[in-house]
């Protein structure tokens, strides 16, 4: 078993009276595909935002490779090697695909090396033919890949994907899953996917945690999770005894 790359301990986030995260602890290991699932409003995106630095937790700590990154700004966390894609694509509408990816590539490269990085990432995400197209003219499936491409251009060690399969048709989904597989196998990027699409989670993830009402209710392999009584309860409701 490989070493943990990200350790989240006792993370708590409140919005007024609502406790969005209640003492969440989890560990992501180097090189794995980790998944966070849970019903709507379980706190998945909040967990994401608190790891990536877009929100600051009220309590708890986040350690990345042993260094405390709790409450650091996102650009610093990106520099250390964590970035993410968003649930609703936040495209740079007036920029072309190539320009968008450049923003990411500038993180670690300049000049010619930067252009090479852009080419490489566009090839991986199969976006070469769209490079001069403006993001405002693209459909959802492509926008999700543009988000992935610009995140990849920053050369993350750990990539967080927030529902990147949502709204895609089966063939688009397979394409995306192929790309994600390659990122993990060939580029050794640790992936953490927050997902609703069960098909994607079950075939990609090696370990899964289930979040419900801001707490972790189960953890294990896809097989263990799919038969876990508390998971079934969270998704389908309690069995009525009569």
């Amino acid at each position, binding site marked *: 078993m490989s070493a943990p790359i990200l350790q989240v301990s006792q993370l708590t986030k409140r919005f007024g009276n609502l406790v969005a995260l209640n003492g969440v602890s989890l560990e992501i290991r180097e090189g794995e595909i980790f998944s966070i699932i849970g019903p709507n409003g379980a706190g998945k995106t909040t967990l994401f935002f608190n790891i990536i*630095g*877009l929100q600051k937790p009220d309590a708890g700590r986040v350690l990345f490779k042993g260094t405390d990154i709790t409450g650091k700004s996102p650009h610093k966390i990106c520099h250390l090697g964590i970035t993410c894609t968003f649930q609703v694509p936040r495209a740079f509408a007036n920029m072309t695909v190539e320009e968008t990816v450049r923003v990411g590539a500038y993180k670690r490269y300049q000049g010619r090396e930067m252009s090479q990085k852009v080419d490489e990432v566009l090839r991986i995400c199969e976006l070469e033919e769209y490079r001069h197209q403006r993001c405002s003219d693209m459909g959802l499936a492509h926008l999700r890949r543009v988000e992935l491409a*610009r995140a990849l251009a920053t050369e993350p060690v750990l990539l967080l994907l927030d529902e990147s399969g949502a709204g895609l048709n089966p063939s688009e989904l397979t394409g995306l899953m192929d790309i994600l597989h390659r990122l993990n196998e060939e580029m050794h990027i640790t992936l953490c996917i927050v997902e609703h699409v069960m098909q994607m989670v079950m075939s990609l993830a090696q370990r899964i945690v289930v979040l419900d009402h801001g707490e972790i209710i189960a953890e294990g392999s896809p097989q263990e999770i799919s038969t876990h009584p508390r998971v079934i309860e969270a998704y389908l409701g309690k069995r009525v005894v009569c």
Partner: protein
Amino acid sequence: MRRSRKDINRPLLILLLGIAVLLPLVVRSNQYTLVLLTTILLYGVLATAWNIIGGLAGQLDLAAGAYLGLGAFTTGTLLIRWNVSPWLGMVLGGLVAIGFALLVGYPLFRFGVKEVWYALSSAALVEVLRVAFLIWNQVGGPVERYLPYHEWSLYHLRFATYLPFFYIMLGLLVLALLIHHWIRQSKLGYYLMALGENEEAAEVLGVNTQKCKLQALSIYAFLVGVTGGIYACMYGFIHPNFFSGPMSTEVAILGIVGGMGITYGPVMAAILLVSVREFLRANLGGQLEGLYLVVYATVLILIALFRPQGLGPLLRQAYDRLLARVAKE
């Protein structure tokens, strides 16, 4: 196609610049036309500078008058009190503008003041400074302070004709355009465009949005501050009304009408709109007070209705079409 486009662009720009340089020869010693042309250039510079913070970085800044006034007062006061040459004065004025921009920009960006709130805060700055300089009798006060008169003095930047100011302003415009062009192609430019589109997404991709916005604001403030120094010398006096709210708004309007972020857009908007405004003022001003503003506003509304993207993209399309036709023949 890309290559040939570049080959045509440069000679075309040099041609346009040549026409601009020769323009005063056509109008000869008509001072009114010279002032008008210089005013167009002045607005061109201001709107091009605005295009960095407003167009690229997407921050609706309404404080151009604040930086213009600071530049004018620094240059003017240094010249009146200590006989410091405005050439040095305008650079110092630009630096004072940067200092003020950082002083105000740091807390604004630190606490995430954005969008309309940023617009309102920056607009308020202009008025705050205007009132402060009205009260501050040692430097400002309610009476105009006149710069020393010289028939022709390069050291004092004072001339009996507007002709030198036309060329100085033209030089500054070329400088501003080059700076904008250079930024747009640089890492800073990409970062500014990204944060202007979506700040959180830019942060996640490693963009220090706060720092980038401060850099953009500083460059803008410096250019406007320098322009303020020349503005003071051109009109020969300084007055707290130089901290002008309407002028600040107009600069933003030119930037928006020109097409956000497009290098030549604001200049085109300045040429068109300032000419229209001055033409209307000259022809309608005597008939009914304020009528020219009604017509001017109507022109703006029409542009907003039919060309919400601004004039820049329209110009670019026409240019592309022209190039395609030339290439065909």
